[in-house]
């Protein structure tokens, strides 16, 4: 369980948000909403551990997330940048991605993950020949390759066509059914059943 209490963020002189409280239980998804510049990305970066937490607390099953090995191994953060190299193929990118996260995965695992996102037959093409949406799908395939418990996703369905959005919805739904958790920002409605989603609106 992830719980966030009294979290606040200031950028220079400006306070982005303060007193953010929410809990995320196994099998649920929190849809984080807010206007442009409300601090959604900053919040995700704080929760994932990229930015330091100035005030408030983020804890993972009762333990603070700072220097928490089990949290580091169980959360995955996907930001606006895809972290995929244009000169490498999707296969190479995903295997490398798993390797720096400390996992070794077989080519078969990666192939089936790419297949679920509709990239069958494009595993070995260099990323630069793929379209923007296809690159995005390949980046999302790391969710399946890494097998993390907590998915922290920043705008995962942006740049995706309708079938790909549905595919992301199916991934999320399957992940939640297995007891996973997701913290997602999106300006669009998430393509999963409403019963699984809690919403939180960030206010300045």
């Amino acid at each position: 369980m992830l719980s966030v209490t009294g979290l606040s963020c200031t950028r220079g002189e400006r306070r982005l948000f303060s007193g953010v409280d929410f809990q995320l239980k196994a099998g649920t998804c929190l849809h984080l909403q807010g206007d442009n510049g409300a601090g959604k990305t900053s919040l995700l970066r704080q929760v994932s551990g990229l930015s330091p937490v100035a005030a408030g607390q983020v804890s993972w099953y009762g333990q603070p997330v700072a220097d928490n090995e089990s949290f580091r191994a169980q959360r995955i953060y996907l930001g606006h940048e895809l972290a995929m190299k244009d000169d490498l193929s999707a296969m190479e990118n995903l295997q490398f991605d798993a390797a720096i996260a400390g996992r070794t995965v077989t080519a078969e695992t990666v192939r089936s993950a790419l297949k679920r996102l509709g990239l069958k037959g494009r595993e070995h093409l260099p990323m630069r020949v793929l379209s923007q949406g296809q690159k995005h799908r390949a980046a999302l395939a790391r969710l399946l390759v890494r097998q993390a418990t907590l998915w922290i996703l920043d705008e995962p369905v942006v740049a995706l066509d309708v079938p790909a959005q549905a595919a992301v919805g199916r991934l999320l739904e399957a992940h939640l059914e297995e007891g996973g958790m997701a913290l997602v920002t999106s300006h669009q409605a998430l393509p999963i059943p409403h019963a699984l989603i809690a919403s939180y609106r960030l206010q300045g």
Partner: protein
Amino acid sequence: MAVIRRDVSLALRRKNEIMTSVFFFVVVASLFPLGIGPEMNTLRLIAPGVLWVGALLASLLSLGRLFAGDHQDGTLEQMVLSSASLPGLVGAKILAHWLLSGLPLVILSPVLALQFDLNAQAIEVLMATLLLGTPLLSLIGAVGAALTLGVRGADVLLSLLVLPLYVPALVFGAGAVQAQTAGLGASAHLSILAAMLLVAAVFSPWACASALRIALE
């Protein structure tokens, strides 16, 4: 290991990046004999300094790209978030940088040294100093590259930051060859270079890792 393999295979797909620093080294080292003319004594005297300065500038040339690419496309974020140790990942990147931009210079240096009429023993010492010195340059430079990451005008700032720190390596590297030709033996200089390399190998990945964490906040 995975980091080294990826960086090397990326570089091999974009060969121009390795070639730039290698060609830079070759051209700089060849311009001096052409400019000075066939004064064998002068050439022998300046050879260690010229080759070392050439190697130093060539290594500086490729430093800007050490972390910039990974920073731009978000790979660095994933490295910082990884449960593997960040200094370890950074150390692997530095090693890959040396394999791609330092090792070729070590291998080419005897050929270039012939233009300066260095004898076989002096060439051996020169290669030994570069073998110890170029990884040292990569390690020191990486700290500078990490500190200037994401800063505007980073390339100029990087040179200003890193070049003064290269001075000890230059002094002992070039000094070793001069000592050898003067008949004093180079072992003292080589030991000091090796000691500096060990110290840098221990501290530089940690310093880089902290600088990268700050850059990504």
